[in-house]
């Protein structure tokens, strides 16, 4: 078993020389009123609860992967279109994968414009066998406009797990 630790070598070579570029105008961010200088002092209103909609949404054209990524080093997996945002010198708690820096695209899809979120969370979960398993979860979400495989611009949402 190679495991995700094998990604460390490829990831180290992908460190970013930061040169941040401003947006020059508000992006298409749902419910986002642009940059704010102060955190909102009022208690936040809850986001609407999603309808009890399980599973996958109606089918649309698939997104396309980001062009870059790393060689996983595993023949069953091959090249993976994925980067790992994270402070230089940091590693994830369990798999110990190093962050590639903060100017790193958290999206796994290209030709995308919208809102996104990223985290690597860790802790424990309780198995049905009574065991408290260690858990590490690289979770991301993207929502906005994207150009699908069919070349059409669409609106959709995606999650990386």
């Amino acid at each position: 078993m190679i495991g995700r630790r094998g990604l460390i070598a490829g990831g180290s070579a992908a460190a970013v020389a930061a040169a941040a570029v401003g947006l020059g105008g508000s992006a298409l961010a749902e419910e986002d009123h642009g940059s704010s200088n102060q955190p909102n002092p009022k208690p936040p209103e809850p986001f609407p609860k999603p309808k009890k909609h399980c599973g996958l949404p109606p089918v649309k054209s698939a997104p396309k992967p980001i062009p870059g990524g790393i060689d996983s080093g595993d023949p069953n997996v091959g090249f993976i279109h994925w980067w790992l945002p994270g402070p230089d010198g940091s590693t994830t708690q369990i798999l110990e994968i190093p962050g590639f820096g903060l100017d790193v695209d958290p999206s796994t899809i290209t030709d995308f414009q919208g809102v996104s979120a990223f985290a690597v969370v860790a802790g424990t979960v309780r198995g049905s066998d009574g065991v408290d398993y260690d858990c590490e979860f690289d979770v991301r979400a993207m929502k906005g406009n994207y150009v699908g495989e069919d070349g059409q611009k669409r609106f959709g949402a995606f999650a990386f797990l």
Partner: protein
Amino acid sequence: MDLFTPGAGAAGQVHDLTPGVLPNGVFWTSAIPVNSFHVGPNRAQLRLRRLPVCDSFFFGSGEGVSAQVSCNVKWEATTNRQDRGEGSSAAPDTPGAFTGKFSDANCTARVRGRETGFAFKPNDPLDASGFYANFGEQRNGVFL
């Protein structure tokens, strides 16, 4: 979403739940209902219910069983929005080939999953305090 034998670290991986890889290479990414994910000025939330995934048990196993996962992930901003990415000045296949404004964030997650013969549910929320989290707005590819 990875589970490990307690205290064994990476070598103890026993579950590896992901949406798989699309034929075009989109990695571990699934379409989700649009109303599952929301971003506001200071908060973001992702709620998934019974998303179909595959448990390959450990990275690169080449085998797997059907499974489903649910999660409630919450981000709370800890910084103001900051410019990120190199935009079109970066080569398209490099990590900086995007532009955006992101807040660093605290993040907590409650996750659960099930498959034939096994299920798991939350203990205390998972959190990102040991690594990193952010959220914001961005564009890449043809939108640069």
